[in-house]
């Protein structure tokens, strides 16, 4: 039996399209599970359903072999870190961290022990008597984490906890949260719209789009074997290049102007003379002679050069290792080595 199970969860708000449909999910103890999707995909709503801050229309939520979907948030015994931290502005850091323990009637000595442990862990000791207003963004974030940790709840929910931090601090907190989670063995559900966060932090990732599960898997399985075009485009940065293609024998014709030969063992798994969609990751394109493309822009990152290209009516990107001084209007010859194939109608990936 899994630690947390969601069964056939449905949710819609008044007079609008369903926010969540047919959500089935199992999360194991100690797992760092990431819910990722664009804004409006229903990921925050799903987190609120688990927390008990929203009620589901249908379905079951089972935590530790107990159905909890009808329980109030306080009965569920979980902790949560909010996007804007949601610290209690009228209370000091120490009072913020202890608020829940006081409400639960935890013994005063035990409160002090847990407080000291959490502030040690997060480096908050000098700030205990400060109000949240007098803290920086990163410090507030740590208070929110400390508040979640002291509860010693076995499940921690995080709703885009890093989105209000600047890029450098975000990268640092990403690592800290991950280390904290592993050292405490805390089962964590982490919501984000940022695929980099999802890839770097998640043991497993669930991609949500329009309230439906697109795919659940490890970061690399999502990257290497996306279930459909949406996942392929959502995971990976820069985003995957796509084009229309048609297969004739072993010859693949792309956007009616470029041709390349496919290996027989790949071609035999694909439909003949039926249009489909190919996907090419920018970092898998290499110099070659399949495509002859015009450079429209370029971004030098130092270790890598990202070149924007005109590809028929589409825009493609190639990520080349090292520094390449291309200019707008230059022509560049490339070959694709690893292709992904998608059905033109269902957008599902075709295994080849």
């Amino acid at each position, binding site marked *: 039996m899994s630690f947390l199970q969601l069964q056939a969860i449905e949710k819609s708000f008044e007079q609008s399209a369903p926010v969540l449909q047919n959500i089935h999910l199992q999360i194991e103890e100690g797992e760092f599970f990431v819910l990722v999707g664009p804004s409006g995909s229903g990921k925050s709503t799903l987190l609120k359903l688990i927390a008990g*801050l929203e009620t589901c229309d249908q379905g079951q939520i089972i935590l530790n072999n107990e159905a909890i979907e009808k329980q109030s948030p*306080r009965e569920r015994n*979980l902790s949560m870190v909010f996007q*804007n931290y949601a610290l209690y502005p*009228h209370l000091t850091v120490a009072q913020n961290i202890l*608020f829940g323990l006081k*409400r639960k009637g935890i013994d005063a000595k035990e409160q002090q022990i847990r407080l000291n442990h959490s502030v040690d862990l997060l480096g908050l000791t000098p700030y205990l008597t400060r109000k949240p207003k007098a803290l920086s963004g990163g410090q507030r974030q740590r208070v929110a984490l400390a*508040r979640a940790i002291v*509860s010693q709840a076995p499940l921690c*929910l995080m709703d885009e906890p890093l989105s209000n931090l600047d890029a450098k601090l975000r990268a640092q907190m990403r690592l800290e949260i991950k280390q904290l989670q592993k050292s405490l063995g805390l089962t964590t559900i982490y919501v984000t719209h940022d695929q980099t966060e999802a890839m770097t932090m998640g043991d497993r990732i669930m991609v949500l789009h329009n309230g439906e599960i697109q795919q659940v898997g490890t970061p690399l399985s999502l990257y290497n074997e996306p279930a459909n075009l949406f996942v392929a485009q959502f995971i990976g940065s820069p985003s995957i290049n796509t084009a229309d293609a048609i297969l004739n024998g072993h010859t693949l014709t792309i956007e009616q102007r470029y041709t390349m030969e496919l290996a027989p063992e790949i071609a035999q798994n694909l439909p003949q003379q039926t249009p489909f969609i190919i996907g090419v990751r920018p970092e898998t394109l290499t110099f070659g002679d399949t495509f002859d493309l015009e450079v429209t822009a370029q971004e030098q990152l130092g270790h890598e050069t990202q070149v924007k290209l005109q590809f028929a009516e589409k825009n493609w990107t190639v990520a080349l290792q090292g520094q390449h001084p291309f200019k707008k209007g230059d022509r560049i010859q490339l070959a694709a080595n690893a292709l992904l194939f998608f059905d033109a109608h269902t957008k599902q990936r075709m295994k080849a």
Partner: protein
Amino acid sequence: MSTEFWTPLKLSVQIACIAGIIVMIVGILLGKWMAKKQFRGKLFFETVLLLPLVLPPTVVGFLLIIIFGKNSFAGEAIVWLFNAPVMFTWWAAVIASIVVAFPLMYQSTKTGFEGVDEDIENAARVDGAKEWQVFFFISIPLASKAIISGGILSFTRALGEFGATLMFAGNIPGKTQTAPLAIYMAIDSGNMSLAWALVISMIIISFLMLLCVHLIRA
């Protein structure tokens, strides 16, 4: 100073205090409930609640007489319960003050509670707080500025109530004759020094109250 100065002033403050406390309690509860609740007819209901703010006090007084008068259901219920009608009593003055002061409190608390970040209340719920604990430990402290300034405004408004009190509670010295009524009577009888004394007292109290509101909001 004479009793004809102190009695109405004391009465005004007493009535305004009791009315203010009742208005605060009801205003906090209703303001909280209305702040995050959506239902059909909410707009209509709120407009009715705010109506005493703009109605002539004589209209309020008239309606109070109709609602609590001898032949009304509420009037009969009160006679049955307390063995005496409420009209022309100290409590009638309190009721009149409550009705005219309530809109100020309601508006202020509702705005205050609307401004409380729902995530903070939710954080408290997840943290293990019961609903009443969320209300007392989070919502009320976070809306405290609005609650206190609403309370002071209501108190000040109750203190100055004239029209509805006159119609519904009468003008009985020592019982329902509040400072505003006493001022009117003093001028009517040519007792200008008493009128001056009461007028200046009222101005000082009201000024200090409004000053507090501004200090709290600043």
